[in-house]
């Protein structure tokens, strides 16, 4: 009996350790836009989020969205890539280069996360870098963004985030203060003008003409491809009995 309990305990510990150390693949770079180092870093960051919250982030690029719309492609890919029964909570961020779409598909807790956000949050996070061709940066920012939604920063982390801005602001206040003190010294300076000696209301205009001469016209083509669209509304669908929700845009 004692031996059985010992073996059972050991088996439990091994299984628990194995479960805790479970490593998922989070990056699916079919378009080949990431270097090995970049992909590795994104894997680590997404895995860290998974370890801490159980929320599964998948980052995907493709050159072939199979003629589907961004929503259908993303829902289908997500459903096929990761077992919805075992990993019910998560989000997939897909970049489709053939149609220049990006899309975020979510399920489980991910849907709740999406619905509580401003409609153009995603665009604010990723669109600038996508338009600039910085795909790694866009995906890294997406992971950070989701991490922040799931794990609110501690007061100390929040303070450290804002520390550079507060430091610069403090120095600006200090500079203004020192300049005010300086303005009270060495005041012996020439007067620039004679405004104090103008007789009040003495300005008398005797001639006032505004003559139109000519005009110049410039035409600038409106750039549409680099502007992108600021993300669509929230859409939802179902794959194999699993509910999905998502939104995306063009870059």
């Amino acid at each position, binding site marked *: 009996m004692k031996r059985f309990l010992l073996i059972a305990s050991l088996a439990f510990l091994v299984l628990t350790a194995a479960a805790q150390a479970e490593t998922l693949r989070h990056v699916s770079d079919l378009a080949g836009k990431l270097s090995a180092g970049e992909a590795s870093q994104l894997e680590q960051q997404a895995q860290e989020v998974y370890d801490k919250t159980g929320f599964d982030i998948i980052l995907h690029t493709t050159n072939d969205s199979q003629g589907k719309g961004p929503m259908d492609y993303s829902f289908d890919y997500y459903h096929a890539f990761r077992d919805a029964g075992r990993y019910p909570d998560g989000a997939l961020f897909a970049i489709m280069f053939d149609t220049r779409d990006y899309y975020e598909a979510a399920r489980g807790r991910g849907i709740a996360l999406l619905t509580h956000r401003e409609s153009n949050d995603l665009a604010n996070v990723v669109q600038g870098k996508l338009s600039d061709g910085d795909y790694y940066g866009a995906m890294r920012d997406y992971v950070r963004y989701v991490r922040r939604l799931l794990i609110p920063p501690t007061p100390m982390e929040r303070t450290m985030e804002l520390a550079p801005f507060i430091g610069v602001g403090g120095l600006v206040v200090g500079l203004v203060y020192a300049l005010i003190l300086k303005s009270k010294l060495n005041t012996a300076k020439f007067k620039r003008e004679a405004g104090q000696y103008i007789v009040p209301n003495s300005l008398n205009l005797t001639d006032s003409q505004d003559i139109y001469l000519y005009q110049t016209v*410039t035409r600038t083509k409106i750039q549409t491809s680099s502007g992108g669209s600021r993300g669509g509304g929230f859409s939802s669908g179902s794959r194999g009995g699993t509910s999905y929700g998502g939104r995306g845009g063009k870059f």
Partner: protein
Amino acid sequence: MSTLTYKCPSCGAPLNYDGRQQEMTCGSCGNTFDPETIRAVNEIQQKDEGFEDLRWETKEEEFSQQELNETRTYSCSSCGAQLFTDETTVATECAFCGSPSVIPAQFAPGTRPEKIIPFLIEKEQAEKMFRDYFKQRKLIPNIFQKGTLQIEEIRKLYAPFWLFNGVADARMTYRGTTVSSHRSGQYMVRTTRHFLIRRAGTLDFKDLPVDASERLDNKITESIEPFRNADAVDFIPQTLSGAQAHRADLSPQQCEERANTRVRVSTDEAFRRTVGGYVSVVPESSNIRIEGGSAEPVLYPVWLITTRKQDKLYTFAINGQTGDVTTDVPWSRAKFFGRMLSMGLGVAAAGLLAVYLLSSMGVIR
């Protein structure tokens, strides 16, 4: 035989008349103009040519024989400054170099001041202002704050000024643009309209003072402006009693340039404010003529205090009427950056603490 050439208001190249279009065309920049517009532009440019005239009439009344008998004008034997005082003063010290002077028996005639503003600030008040100044200023170099602050010299001085009065008759032209944009298909169309703007008119200046003493630094005297001329009284030699006074050793003609510089800036600014509704306005020409300009000699009350630190003399001046103070004492760079950093770090520390507390309370997420 002279020829008349019209120049393009845009690029300055000669314009040709296009008989078919009945327009003036520029062969250089390609702009076209209505002949009536060109006529108006030419008229404005010709109107203002040779208009400028910045001269002031002066009132230079000599002392009467009786006043000369009561007023003493003399040159400092040490520094050469021209000074005058009342007849009762037989010995004084130079207001500028501090050398003791015995007033000679023979006096040169000088310009008689029209008005004088009496001192309202007494010596004790002036000394207190001087000492308070160094206590209150945080960037004063340490040499002024260590040990006792010795007044090397304190002088009650009537400083000579010319008061300039006149009407600035101004003619200004500017180039202005307006911009409008609209979308046309796949293009943004931006239209910039160019205008020639003319303003003409008058602006009155009254009692603009210019320091008439060569020995007084204009930076010092202008920094303690303004003086209230409503308090001025007619000059009589007795008003000099108990004070030193400096004779005007700069003529109104020598002071005109300073007055004109200030009048021009204020006139330009006043007329510029009448131009509105443009995206950009660039001054093109400014012609000012002084009408009825006059310069009147007056004496203004000034306390001059000097203090010596590390063998350097620093001047401290107080408007003897209003109590306005100025000085050429420098500021300390080390204290400037020290104050900037201490205030900056203090504000930053308070900001970080506030963010930490607000984050802890859930106000900042």
